């Protein structure tokens, strides 16, 4: 348009950025790789139940009633993953019912994450060779690959936190409005992806407040900056609260529901315990992050490297060796301490680690740049260490390292096995009950999703009968119920018979913990 002197950008000079072609290539390669692993995982019946819940809600919105009903989005799980599954479920109902769309969304999110990470690395001054090496290691990280390939909402959370962190980092450097808005939008979406996104929101607010007061020292600027930052977050979260009020009759329904006890690998754990555990575990991590950002904002960016590196070691340890923490988790469960939900920690840890790794390396590498080969040696050494850390970190129990290789045969890290659920669903497909089809227990939604029973079913998350179950048209119906223990099966059947007012006849098929009963009129 004109010479560089005459045409000044509104903000600071344009930072380093990868070329458009490079960005597209990174996105496509990452998405294709994750899609391949994800598709393979589905053929091996490897699933993440929360990812499948999002698909199930999307299918319910589109198909449970004669017309689309957003009120069926589900009000316990955060809604964004389900909303993002809506187009897939609409365009590919068959694939959605088979649980195939989880990896499709996961692949896109993985592509975007790597795209952003590559751009963040470039912004922080890392060369292309190193960026690609770093991105490859991240892609091969078993935790990252597991989250993305199984389409678990935490993968989306990683992407959103990474985006927010990167935007915040840039905002600290140049205080451009678009970075503040970007950070806000990412965090706003994060609040409806996982409720504990409130914690990074608080951290970011502290960072922004600190920097604004330090650089401007005026209340009016702080006021405007905080309004700009918090408005989208409050609005997005507020919409979710409003939806709860209008549809469920309780503005805080999602929160109360999330406090219910749910069966987990470690026994009954309430979300209250999970949240407390999560907060306790995240607080030091996020405090360190804040410190790192604050160091970066102090005008001496290399100071950020210290806190960032301090942060990296524990974060990386949890990331690469979740096995380490398993015994501790088990002990915590036995002693009724607030339970640390390790899988919930992966996402924020991963996002913080990726960003701060890039930041730290970007800070550290220039220190060696004057020495011949020192930079390359440093980078190569770091890359080897990271690779070794990923592959051969010692773990607890029988696991000696988190092996990424199972992912390549369709068993990504963290995935559960859905064989039994699919078998039950296949049997259910052949049934045509005259009465109501009741599916009780978790994850009943997966049974009905696989069976293509979006319409004519009633789902109860608990295996025990709720108080208001009596109104259902039970006679001639079916009850598919998850038995936590075979010993309690008889007691549970009595409870259901009493609640429904019918006689339950055990059928001859079952799969995993799922038992199948026919409901007949009481004699």
């Amino acid at each position, binding site marked *: 348009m004109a010479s560089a002197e005459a045409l000044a950008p509104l903000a600071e000079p344009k930072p380093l950025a990868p070329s458009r072609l490079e960005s597209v290539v990174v996105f496509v390669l990452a998405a294709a790789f994750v899609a391949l692993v994800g598709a393979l995982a589905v053929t091996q019946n490897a699933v993440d139940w929360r990812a499948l819940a999002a698909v199930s809600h999307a299918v319910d919105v589109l198909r449970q009633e004669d017309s689309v009903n957003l009120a069926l989005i589900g009000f316990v799980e955060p809604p964004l993953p389900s909303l993002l599954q809506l187009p897939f479920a609409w365009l590919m109902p068959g694939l959605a019912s088979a649980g195939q769309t989880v990896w499709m969304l996961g692949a896109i999110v993985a592509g975007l994450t790597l795209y952003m990470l590559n751009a963040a690395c470039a912004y922080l001054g890392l060369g292309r060779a190193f960026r690609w090496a770093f991105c490859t290691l991240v892609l091969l990280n078993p935790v990252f690959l597991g989250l993305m390939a199984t389409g678990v909402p935490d993968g989306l959370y990683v992407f959103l936190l990474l985006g927010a962190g990167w935007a915040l980092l840039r905002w600290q450097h140049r205080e451009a409005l678009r970075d503040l808005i970007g950070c806000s939008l990412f965090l706003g979406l994060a609040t409806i992806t996982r409720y504990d996104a409130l914690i990074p929101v608080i951290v970011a607010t502290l960072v922004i407040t600190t920097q604004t007061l330090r650089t401007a020292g005026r209340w*009016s600027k702080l006021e405007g900056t905080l309004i700009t930052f918090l408005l989208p977050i409050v609005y997005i979260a507020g919409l979710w609260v409003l939806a709860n009020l209008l549809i469920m009759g309780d503005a805080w329904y999602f929160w109360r529901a999330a406090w219910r006890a749910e069966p987990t690998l470690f026994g009954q754990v309430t979300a209250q315990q999970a949240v407390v555990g999560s907060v306790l575990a995240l607080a030091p991590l996020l405090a360190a992050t804040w410190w790192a950002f604050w160091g970066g904002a102090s005008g001496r960016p290399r100071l950020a490297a210290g806190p960032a590196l301090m942060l990296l070691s524990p974060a990386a340890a949890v990331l690469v060796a979740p096995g380490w923490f398993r015994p501790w988790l088990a002990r915590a469960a036995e002693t009724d301490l607030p339970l640390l939900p390790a899988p919930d920690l992966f996402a924020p840890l991963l996002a913080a680690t990726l960003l701060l790794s890039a930041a730290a390396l970007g800070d550290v590498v220039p220190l060696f740049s004057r020495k011949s080969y020192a930079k390359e040696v440093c980078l190569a050494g770091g890359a080897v260490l990271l690779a070794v850390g990923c592959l051969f970190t010692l773990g607890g129990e029988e696991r000696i390292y988190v092996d990424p290789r199972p992912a390549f045969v369709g068993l990504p890290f963290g995935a559960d096995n859905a064989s039994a659920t699919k078998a039950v669903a296949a049997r259910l497909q052949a049934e045509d009950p005259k009465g109501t089809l009741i599916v009780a227990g978790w994850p009943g939604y997966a049974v009905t999703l696989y069976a293509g029973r979006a319409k004519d079913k009633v789902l109860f998350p608990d295996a025990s009968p709720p108080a208001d179950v009596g109104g259902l048209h039970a006679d001639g119906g079916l009850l598919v119920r998850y038995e936590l223990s075979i010993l309690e099966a008889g007691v549970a059947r009595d409870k259901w018979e009493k609640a429904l007012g019918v006689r339950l006849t055990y059928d001859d098929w079952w799969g995993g913990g799922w038992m199948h009963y026919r409901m007949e009129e009481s004699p």
Partner: protein
Amino acid sequence: MCPPQSPGGHTGPPLRVGASLDQWPPPDRTIDLLRFARDHPEHSAFATLTAAQVLALALLAAVVTAAAMWNWVATLLVANAAAIIFYLVHIGYKFHVAWLSLERGVEFNPSTEAMASIPDGELPTYTILVPLFHEAEVLDRLVRGLQALDYPAGKLDIQLLLEEEDTETIAAARKLTLPSQFRCVVVPDGQPRGKPRACNYGLALSEADLLVIYDAEDRPEPDQLRKAAAAFREAPPDIACLQARLNYLNQRQNLLTRWFTQEYSTWFDLFLPGLTVSGAPVPLGGTSNHFRVSVLKELMGWDPFNVTEDCDLGIRLHARGHRTAMLHSTTWEEANSALLNWIRQRSRWAKGYIQTYLVYMRNPFATLRALGLRGFWGFQMTIGGSIACFLLNPIYWSMTALWFASHWWVISAMFPPAIFGLGLICGFIGNFVFVYLAVAGVMQRGYHDLAKYAVLTPVYWLLMSLGAYKGLLQLFTRPHYWEKTQHGLFEEA
């Protein structure tokens, strides 16, 4: 008092006419101020609607009536679906353009060194047009403000354009002792009376290289002319116009001026820079647009029948292959602080936007060819889309209120699930986007304390819709009437 003197490098007649009464030239009635409208009636707003447009609208009305008679609920549903899809597209476009501005918004911003590197003798000659109509009370302040401009007096030709019938302002002007770079120009009386006609007169008298328009209450930044001159020197030849940012002196006078400031900040600091990046035509602001005089004369100046002649000219520039860019300099104006006065001004803007839209939609294919696909799309969204929003908004607000009050079945029937879903996106995301753009606008401008007032912006939209409906009605009753905005309501202005 005013020795005729040619500025450096200027070979034409003296630019400076001087200020003493006897030196005022009589109005030159031989200048054809309506030349553009005469030579290019197809691009003039002289006729509001062409016969073909009347026919097309009649046909549309007939189709809608027939459809309504066949099934009026289904007709409403289709209209509703079309409106909601339009809203979604418009919201997306506005956000995209604003984001472009934040991401790579560029404007001409020559450094102090670059400006200083041009010797005074090499600066281009500059005409400043100041159309005045019943502005006697601000005249003194105006002259002082223009005198503060940092530009060699010998290179300036400041024309105070006085309407022949405005004896009050002429009398006030006669009392002034004007420096030599000023001249009072009496515009011969005629119709349609208004700013574009006066500017055409001033343009005809101009023999400068560059030209800028300022309103009576304007206070341009002192280095604006030097900046524009340096920018034009650097700019490629297809940049024919540099639009400086406009903003207000009295941002915090009352709630109305706060909202108005938000709107201007968003428009000039976010939206217009985004438009220049997107390759769409730029609807110029009423003042502080700096032109190459040769291009302006080639385009025959302003359409005197269009009450937003600036907007029309911006589109015409683009259609003729020229471009507009933003200049990093602010002109301070007085925000309209009185509600009725504000609505009058707004109704004129709305009327002018509709006029401009109708003019360029007389032959949409020709407009598409002239503007290009991106330009045409930008024109639809910026000119047509903005007005459509203001006109549609009250309908949807009323429908929402009616539904909550009565749960009328017709409204439910207009919103089957898919449309309802899209409507929800419009309602919840669209409204938020516009509120948030208002916040972003004031933050970009640095008015941090005004951010909180953005939350109340929807009330301001109601006022904008009022103005739009007034403008729409007036388009059919007094299409060329110039709703005069009263200035001087702010004491310090």
